[in-house]
Structures are given as structure tokens and as C-alpha cells.
């Protein structure tokens, strides 16, 4: 595994070095892209100056709001649907085709209904994330061994105890998959809609910098988003793998 990690690091370093070389050699001109070391320097300056703090805070707030909504609704809806077989069968085709539909296509409509504020962005991010959570919640509940549920019944556990001590631990890894997806989708939803049309946030700042040819702002912000999503995804994936290993599922 260590060899693999070393190779991974090597690939990243090689990619950055290649970009650096291409930029310095002038094969990628300055208007298209700055060399990576300048991007890193600009990112440092941008963060130290605090110029983007407002935008970052706004994006994070909206993402977290959308995420909390998506997780809450997803868990509750999943739990309810698990008990209503007919309803679940009816909604199944909707879930199966859901991610084939470009949810962003509804963004214009939400803007018309709710105005150009935070609500349309949160709604888009929520809509993107919630179905992943519902589907994985259902998946998790399906995988709870029925012998454990019977044991809980024999031991006369209350519904709350059953949920906390039996269902949650068994369904945990699947829930985490749902959470991981919902986090990614919430991020994509908020930043994407900021980018399409909005009045603030990191996505807005990127599109603003792009339209004003401000590469010294645009590239650092893009790198910031890439780093943030890669780190969050990495942490959740590692946790997920640990849970799976502990349950002997991998």
C-alpha cells in the first residue's frame, strides 16, 4: 500500500511539474493559465487578505444548510418509505432516473419563484443531495440482518433503542455512503448555481473573475474549491472504508 501511496504522490507532483514546465516554456500562454507556483502564491495572498472571506462564508453556510436539509429529509423519507412497500415501488423509477435529469435546469424556475437569493441555490443543492441519501438509507435498512431485529424484539427493546443499537450500527456504512454523496452534491449544487447566476459566493467570484480576465483571482479560487472537495471526499471515504472493514464487508 505504501508503494501505491508513493506512486500517487509521484503522479500529482509530475502533473504539477508538467504544468509548470509548459507554462514557463510558453506553450500555455499567460492569458490561458498561470504557472502553478504563481497560483499557489496568489491563493496564499487571497486567503491572507481576507478579501474572499465573505464569499467563502456564504458558500459554506448555504452548503451546510442544504446538506442538513438533505440529510434530515433523506433519513426520514427513507425510514418512512422502507415501511410503505407500495409507495416505495411507485417511487422507485423516479429514484432510478433521477440523476439522469439535469437538476440545474430547474434553477431558472426557482429563481423566478423565490427571487435571486439564497433559497434557489439551497433548493438545488438539496434536490441534488436528498435522493442519494434516500436511496442509500433504503439500501442500508434493507441490509439490516433480520435476525438482529428479531433479537431486539426478543429483548423487548424500545423502538428508539432498536434504532440506536441495532439499525444504525448495521446500516452505518450505507448511511455514510449516502452522506458522502450528499456532501459532494450539496457542494456541487451551491457552487454550480452560484456560478450560473447569483449575487455572491465562491462560484460567483470565479465567474466574475473570469469575465473580467482576472486570472490572479480565478485560478486560486478554483484550486481552493478543488482542494476543499478532494479533502472532504478523502476524509469521508477513509471513514467509510474503516466502517466497512470493521463490519468485515471489505
Amino acid at each position, binding site marked *: 500500500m505504501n*508503494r*501505491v501511496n508513493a*506512486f*500517487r504522490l509521484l*503522479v*500529482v507532483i509530475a502533473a504539477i511539474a508538467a504544468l509548470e514546465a509548459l507554462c514557463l516554456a510558453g506553450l500555455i500562454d499567460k*492569458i*490561458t*493559465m498561470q504557472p502553478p507556483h504563481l497560483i499557489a502564491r496568489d491563493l496564499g495572498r487571497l486567503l491572507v487578505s481576507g478579501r474572499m472571506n465573505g464569499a467563502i462564508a456564504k458558500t459554506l453556510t448555504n452548503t451546510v444548510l442544504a446538506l442538513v436539509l438533505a440529510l434530515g429529509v433523506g433519513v426520514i423519507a427513507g425510514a418512512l418509505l422502507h415501511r410503505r412497500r407500495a409507495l416505495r*415501488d*411507485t*417511487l422507485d*423509477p*423516479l429514484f*432510478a*432516473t433521477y*440523476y*439522469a*435529469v*439535469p437538476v*440545474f*435546469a*430547474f434553477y*431558472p*424556475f426557482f*429563481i*423566478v*419563484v423565490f427571487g435571486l437569493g439564497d433559497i434557489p441555490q439551497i433548493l438545488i443543492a438539496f434536490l441534488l443531495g436528498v435522493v442519494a441519501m434516500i436511496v442509500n438509507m433504503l439500501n442500508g435498512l434493507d441490509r439490516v440482518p433480520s435476525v438482529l431485529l428479531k433479537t431486539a424484539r426478543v429483548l423487548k427493546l424500545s423502538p428508539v433503542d432498536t434504532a440506536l443499537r441495532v439499525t444504525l450500527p448495521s446500516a452505518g456504512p450505507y448511511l455514510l455512503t449516502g452522506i458522502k454523496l450528499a456532501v*459532494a452534491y450539496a*457542494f*456541487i449544487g451551491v*457552487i*454550480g448555481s452560484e*456560478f*450560473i*447566476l447569483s449575487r455572491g459566493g*465562491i*462560484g460567483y467570484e*470565479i*465567474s466574475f*473573475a*473570469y469575465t473580467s480576465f482576472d486570472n490572479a483571482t*480565478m485560478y486560486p*479560487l*478554483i484550486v481552493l*474549491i*478543488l482542494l476543499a*472537495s*478532494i479533502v*472532504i*471526499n*478523502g476524509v469521508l*471515504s477513509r471513514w467509510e472504508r474503516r466502517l466497512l472493514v470493521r463490519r468485515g464487508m471489505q
Partner: protein
Amino acid sequence: MSPARRAGLLRSLALIAALIGLWQAVYWWVGDIALASPLATVRYAARMIASGDLGPHLYDTMRAFVIAFVFSVGIGLAVGFWLGFQRLAGDTLEPMIVAIYAIPKLTLYPILLLAFGLGLSAKVAFGVLHGVIPIVLFTFAAVRNTKPILIKTGRVLKLSPGQTVRWILFPAAVPEIFTGLRVGFSLTLIGTLLAEMFASQRGLGYLLMTGIGLHNVEQILAVTLLIVVFAAAVSVLLLHLDHRLHRRG
């Protein structure tokens, strides 16, 4: 028609009816300024199709989409098979590709615009960027999960790498690869449409954005409806084929 299948069809119809009912209810709630009724939207869409206003935009979107999908499939299968074969390359790169999958790719659009310029190539590149990753990941997983005995048989029969792919890996991996193609199809379409929403003078995504600019609710909804119906219809068809392939395998 078997009873199970008829029940499934009935449920699908009920779902569609419920969605249309929901739309109509929301329309009564928010009114004409924000929303058009289902009937008015369908009428507007029919008018757009009949008058020929939609034709050129649809053609533009479809052209970009088809080119993008061809690239996604070609690159996705090649990279997927390569990663599946080369254990070290696969172990090294797979988590990195998964990480790229979770990135809000919309923010990369300015870079693509700078690199490819405004127009078809940027749209295609953006479609490929979205669509290629699931195809790579599913193909990779499919090749990795091929039963070792099949590959050993190939080695015993002294098949070349090309022959191994053609006669052993590909047939064994088809169901999984098809799932990848199905997901890749949707994401390529989404990528192409998103690209059109920012920087283009034609296409369905462009129509959506002009709809916002002109505050033409009927246009926004009619285009959204066309996109959703197309995406959902193709997806249902692919899903059906997908299930059949998996059952056979």
C-alpha cells in the same frame, strides 16, 4: 403482458400522473408570474417545435452531445481497461479519479473556455469531462471483478492481450460496462447542457438562459420539460436494457 409487468406499468403511470398533479397544484399556488400550467407548457413546447424555432437549437445540442458521448465512451473504455489490467496503475489512479468525480466541475468551465475557446469544442470538452469518469470507473471495476479462472483460461489458450479483451474480458464485463455507459450518457448530457447555459449562442441550455433574461416562464418550462422528458425516457430505456443484461449474466 405478465401481471407483474402490468403492475409496474400502472405504478409508473400513477407516478407520472402524481408529478403532473403536483405541478398543477404548485401552479395554482404560485400563479402565472412564476409558473405556467402543464397544459400551457405543452402547448408552448408544441408551438416551438412546429414553428421551427427549436430545430436549430436542438440540432446544436444534439451534435455537441453525440460527439461528446463518442469521446466519453472511447476514452472511458480505453482508460478503464488499461487501469483494470495494470494493477499498480489501477491502485494508484482509481482513488484519484473518484476524487475528481466529487469535484464541482462547473468551476473548471472557465479553464476549458480559455483552453478551447467559445463554441462547439468547449461544449464537447465539458460533456466529456462529466461523462468519462463513470465509464472509466465502471469499466475498471468490471475488469477487476472478472473471474480469475476466465483470465487463466485465456492464458492457457495463449491469447494475445487484444484477444483477451475481445473474447474474455469484454463479454464478461458487458453488464457492468453497460451500467457505466448508462450513467455516462446522463452525465454527458448534463455536462453539455450546463456548458450551453454559460457560454454559447445556441442550444437548449442557451434557450434556458434567454428564458431567464426575458423572464419568459413558458419558454423556461417548455425547454426544461423537453430536456427532462428526453433524459428520463432514454434513461428508462437504458435501465431496462441494463436489468436485462444483468439478469442474463
